[in-house]
């Protein structure tokens, strides 16, 4: 991240023009990912509608490319532009970009904690180019050299005299210049915003109830639509009688919508859609439907069956060897000192606070969509194909979104909305209820894990075997091995133990599953970091020191994936910082304990120390979480802290309460009364989060703090009362 002169190449594809009101309009090609770059090199890119604009009144409008799902991207990405431009934050107006190749296309996804990694450079370049143009214009007006001019808080000044100009004053002039060939980007020591905290630009809209979420979209002549489906997965409609539904005042239509995908494991279930002029009418209409179902192929499926299979599979060698170093089996057989433990993680659902929805205005030759998707560009492509409309005729707006957690990565609700829209001549808002959300979700995979380890006389771990059985997300993907979504073979403690082996066996099931916040990692962190804790206790070592020793005194880096490395130094850094801030090792009252866990997810390192009490009757109180993160260069500091706080609460919800169970092919849970979310009284009163400063490129913060929550909590419970939690959720094992 050294200071450098950045060439503005053809790939950046920047065009300057005048706003109709006289300001400066800057078209930017956000060409960030390799895929986009490749296409750009081939000259496919030609659209130019991504921009930032500077009004004559000094206000700067910045288009944010990535959906805001609560991760703070509408603050963090515009900050990058504001930083290079040197404008006051209150003069920034953040607009939400439509889905478009011009904004990065597939890079626009709110997924994989990628936004800051993808947009770190392009957004700063956009700001830097605007800054250069404005300085040129001011220099010309003052007849000074450009290099003596600079911008401070949106005011252009110079080192030679006391003249000042607002950026708005020269915006029009700046719009007549060509883009500079080079711009220099700031070095970290020059940052004014980056690394500090700025205000959420949407705070007033949110607090006053004016923010427009997907369910708040209102367009003229719009109808509401929803769909009644069978709770039995894979059921199809034999026949239905909608006569009573159509008698409900306001209900206009009811029709069958066929399933999408493979009948025994459909991506979208079959059902009967009800369309009406109000949400309430549609809900009443759904209740009045009489549907006869063919229950299909999954009526024998149950989580009980999956428990039996999952348990059985980890007792024998796995079907696939994911990673194998040294000779684990012979070491385990010959060692005197061994430990084994079996863990389980249930299916869990995403339950974003705003249920999924999509508003579609389909005309004969065009279509406009307002969506709560996390993947706008993928949906745009899907819808353009589905409606057989050229992509230029389809506009997909992204609304403010009430939570994501990975729920909105799959286009199931979008497909259903599209199918319904096609049947009608009117715009529709298609929505799911909370019951739909929980019952028809695609869940975090169900898994069993058996771990075995051995150690030598110096109490050093010599072998590590991790067998997992589960309903892999990749079970039915062509060209993928089931284990690929469920193991990260180079995550710690890989490379730290001489004999190391991971095995995977697939539990075959049709139950629909998908990604949830920090996919794969959210299960692995619980298992790996709990077992490390067990080994520390078993060998009589302090869990923090045990981890630090395992990571070795010497700093090492290993290859993690293509373009990604994992560092012992940075992992030790977060462990030490969290421990130090939590006063790790201090004397605690009886029944009180601290637990630590650290995990690497999407190139970010996070460690939590949980501080809990468990009394004699098994009442659990969570007092405090102390956390440390190393996410490289921090963008919005307060945003990083907020993501840690939120991930702790989310992690606690999952660890304490959440479990989806299946009987006769159908999900038993159906609303917040039987699928728990952490409440205020159960949340820790104290959370202290710290950031490790370091000169690394920025990495994401939305997901990485989530995986280590469960093991930190469970390790603290063990320290407090000696009870080891190996199956989630905790709910029936302690009083919460």
């Amino acid at each position: 991240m050294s200071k450098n002169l950045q060439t503005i190449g053809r790939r950046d594809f920047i065009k300057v023009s005048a706003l109709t009101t006289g300001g400066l309009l800057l078209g930017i090609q956000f060409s960030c990912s390799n895929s986009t770059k490749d296409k750009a090199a081939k000259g496919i890119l030609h659209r130019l509608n991504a921009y930032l604009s500077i009004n004559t009144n000094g206000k700067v409008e910045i288009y944010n490319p990535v959906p805001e799902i609560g991760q703070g991207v509408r603050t963090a990405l515009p900050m990058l532009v504001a930083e290079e431009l040197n404008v006051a934050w209150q003069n920034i107006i953040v607009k939400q970009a439509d889905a478009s190749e011009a904004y990065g296309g597939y890079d626009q996804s709110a997924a994989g904690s990628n936004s800051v990694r993808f947009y770190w450079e392009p957004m700063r370049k956009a700001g830097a180019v605007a800054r250069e143009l404005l300085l040129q214009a001011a220099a010309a007006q003052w007849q000074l050299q450009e290099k003596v001019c600079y911008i401070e808080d949106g005011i252009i000044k110079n080192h030679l005299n006391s003249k000042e100009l607002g950026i708005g004053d020269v915006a029009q002039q700046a719009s007549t210049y060509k883009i500079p060939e080079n711009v220099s980007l700031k070095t970290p020591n020059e940052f004014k915003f980056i690394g500090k905290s700025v205000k959420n630009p949407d705070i007033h809209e949110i607090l006053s109830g004016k923010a427009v979420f997907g369910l708040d979209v209102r367009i003229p002549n719009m109808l509401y639509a929803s769909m009644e489906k069978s709770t039995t997965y894979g059921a199809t409609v034999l026949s239905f009688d909608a006569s009573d539904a159509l008698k409900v005042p306001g209900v206009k239509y009811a029709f069958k919508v066929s399933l999408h995908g493979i009948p025994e494991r459909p991506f979208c279930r079959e059902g009967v859609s009800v369309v009406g002029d109000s949400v309430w009418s549609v809900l009443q209409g759904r209740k009045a439907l009489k549907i006869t179902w063919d229950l299909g192929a999954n009526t024998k499926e149950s989580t009980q069956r999956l428990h039996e299979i999952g348990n059985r599979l980890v007792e024998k060698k796995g079907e696939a060897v994911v990673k194998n170093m040294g000779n684990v089996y012979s070491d385990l057989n010959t060692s005197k000192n061994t430990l084994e433990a079996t863990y389980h993680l249930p299916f869990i659902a995403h339950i974003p606070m705003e249920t999924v929805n999509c508003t579609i205005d389909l005309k004969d030759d065009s279509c406009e969509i307002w969506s709560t998707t996390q993947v706008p560009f993928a949906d745009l492509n899907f819808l353009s194909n589905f409606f057989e409309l050229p992509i230029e005729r389809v506009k997909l707006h992204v609304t403010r979104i009430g939570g994501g957690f990975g729920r909105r990565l799959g286009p199931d609700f979008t497909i259903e909305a599209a199918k319904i829209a096609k049947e009608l001549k009117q715009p529709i808002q298609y929505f799911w209820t909370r019951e739909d959300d929980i019952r028809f979700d695609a869940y975090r995979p169900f898994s069993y894990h058996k771990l075995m380890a051995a150690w030598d006389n110096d109490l050093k771990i010599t072998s590590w075997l991790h067998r997992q059985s589960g309903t892999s997300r990749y079970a039915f993907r062509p060209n993928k091995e089931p284990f690929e979504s469920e193991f990260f073979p180079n995550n710690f403690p890989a490379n730290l133990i001489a004999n190391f082996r991971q095995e995977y066996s697939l539990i075959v099931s049709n139950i629909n599953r998908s990604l949830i916040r920090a996919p794969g990692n959210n299960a692995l962190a619980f298992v790996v970091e709990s077992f490390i804790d067990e080994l520390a206790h078993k060998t009589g070592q302090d869990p923090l020191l045990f981890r630090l020793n395992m990571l070795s005194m010497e700093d090492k880096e290993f290859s993690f994936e293509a373009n990604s490395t994992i560092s012992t130094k940075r992992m030790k850094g977060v462990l030490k910082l969290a421990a130090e801030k939590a006063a790790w090792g201090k004397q605690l009252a009886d029944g009180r304990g601290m637990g630590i866990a650290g995990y690497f997810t999407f190139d970010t390192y996070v460690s939590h120390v949980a501080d809990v009490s468990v009394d004699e009757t098994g009442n659990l109180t969570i007092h405090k979480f102390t956390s440390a993160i190393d996410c490289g260069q921090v963008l919005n500091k307060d945003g990083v802290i907020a993501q840690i706080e939120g991930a702790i609460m989310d992690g606690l919800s999952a660890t304490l309460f959440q479990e989806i169970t299946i009987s006769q092919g159908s999900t038993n849970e159906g609303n917040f009364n039987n699928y728990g979310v952490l409440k205020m009284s159960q949340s820790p009163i104290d959370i202290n989060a710290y950031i490790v400063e370091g000169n690394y490129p920025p990495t994401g913060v939305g997901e990485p703090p989530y995986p280590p929550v469960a093991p930190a909590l469970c390790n603290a419970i063990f320290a407090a009362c000696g009870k080891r939690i190996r199956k989630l959720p905790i709910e029936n094992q302690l009083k919460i």
Partner: protein
Amino acid sequence: MAIYTIQINYKEVTIDVPAEKPVLWVLRDDLGLLGTKYGCGIAQCGACTVHLNGNPVRSCALPIASIGKGTLLTIEGYASKKHPVFKAWEEINVPQCGYCQTGQIMSAIALLNRNKNPDDKAIDAAMNGNLCRCGTYYRIRKAIKRAAKLN
């Protein structure tokens, strides 16, 4: 369908809706007051919290026919007034996705209107019915205490 005249946000409005229609859907479907949110429909999440005669209620489980002469206040009714809760929420930068926040604010205002200086227990009791999937509880607690100071 029946005609109801209700007091809402200091105004009287007349609507023609089914007696059992919950206030949540009257607000959203019939009155275009969209700051009150749907989260569960069964009084389990608090996203739809409004004030009926000053008390926080879950509007998704409140049939319009049961309102009678009561006065209703929604977030829109409060947003125009400068209650310290808004300032505190802004200072502490509480929201993440923001979806639950109007409901949280309505519960917090009701709490502070009857308890000028709530302690942690009082906050737990008043706010337990308001879920936040983004997990902003830590900041909500801080913001309520801050609002109490600002008051």
